[in-house]
């Protein structure tokens, strides 16, 4: 069994899909949470000077999605064929597009007025368009218990993480999307994930 060390800050942020994936896979790991003041010590050791980073027996992988996909593959949760894997990957990329649009106003817009405007556009226009597509794709997969195939993949885990972020800002945002809402609730009870959600540190992001 390789040893896994996940380096990130003390928050869910970009590392949470990997933590959820490790939980679903039942893989033990060291959850290293770096205080911001200590980051300058760690930064030069990371492949691109960024976190999260997964250290697997000394080999370092950066980029949150690459990390989560690796863990998924190691535990047979990435899709059973190349086509299933591609369909799972495409969902994750779609969720990523939404996350990036959120990050744009949450993290990267310093002007309060512009921030409020962008947030409004996100919830009025962007989110309904994307969630509409995601609901349709979910239902198209045999009625929609999972995004791909007949079991959990990293696509479902990334959706849970996205759903966490958007429902934190607007709790009833999944109301018009019953299958997406049901999937998020179901994945919360998945063995491993259920335990992690109960014990994970409570952080503002």
């Amino acid at each position, binding site marked *: 069994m390789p040893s896994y060390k996940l380096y990130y800050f003390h928050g869910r942020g970009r590392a949470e899909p990997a933590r959820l994936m490790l939980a679903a896979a039942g893989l033990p790991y060291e959850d290293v949470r770096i205080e911001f003041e200590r980051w300058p010590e760690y930064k030069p050791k990371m492949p691109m000077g960024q976190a999260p980073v997964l250290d697997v027996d000394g080999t370092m992988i950066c980029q949150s999605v690459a990390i989560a996909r690796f863990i998924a593959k190691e535990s047979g949760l990435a899709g059973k064929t190349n*086509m299933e894997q591609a369909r799972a990957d495409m969902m994750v990329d779609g969720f990523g597009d939404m996350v990036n649009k959120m990050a744009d106003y949450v993290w990267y817009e310093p002007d309060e007025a512009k921030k409020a405007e962008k947030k409004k556009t996100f919830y009025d226009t962007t989110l309904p368009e994307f969630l509409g597509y995601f609901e349709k794709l979910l239902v198209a997969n045999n009625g929609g218990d999972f995004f791909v195939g007949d079991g959990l993949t990293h696509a479902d885990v990334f959706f849970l993480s996205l759903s966490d972020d958007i429902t934190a800002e607007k709790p009833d945002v999944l109301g018009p999307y019953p299958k997406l809402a049901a999937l998020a609730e179901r994945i919360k009870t998945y063995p491993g994930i259920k335990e992690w959600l109960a014990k994970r540190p409570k952080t503002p992001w």
Partner: protein
Amino acid sequence: MPAYKLTYFNGRGTAEIVRLVFAAAGISYEDVRLEQDKWPELKPKTPMGQVPILEVDGTMLCQSNSIARYVAKQAGLAGKTPMEQARVDMVMDVMDDMGKKGNAVFWEKDEETKAEKKKEYEETFLPQFFTCVNKLVGDSGHFVGDELTLADITYFNTTNLVGNYFKLPNMEEFSGLKKVTEHVTSNPGIAKWLKERPETPF
């Protein structure tokens, strides 16, 4: 052999990585280039209202990186083990960050801000970025293992696209990246495609 149909606009853009992988793999495909006025009709039929899409065996895939990874896997160009594949994915995503940052500068509406951001991107970001990425190249002159992978092709493609609008630093300084570029451009399938591909504004 399945029939592959790639649909995008008439340009390189986010489809080009897929075209380069098909070229390296020697896999034939239908390269559909949509006129802008045909797009509204197709949009609702696509998985996420976007192109590129790849149709294969009755399934429609979207998201350029996922499509590229799928085609690369069919041809053994995505890394041989889960760890190699993770390293390939990591390089793809790193290059994506560079491309996205460049895009954000390109689409900046305020002319003065745009000029400032372009300067920062060219003079500060890119040199630091390439210095870091150069360290990821192995002694083989490839990012992963000792053969061409999607990581090498992605590095070449993103740098090529960014270089069309932005002034790149002196790439001679990055010996690893130079080797990667040589490997990619000397791949017979890619060399042929680079010569034959349509000249387009984007």
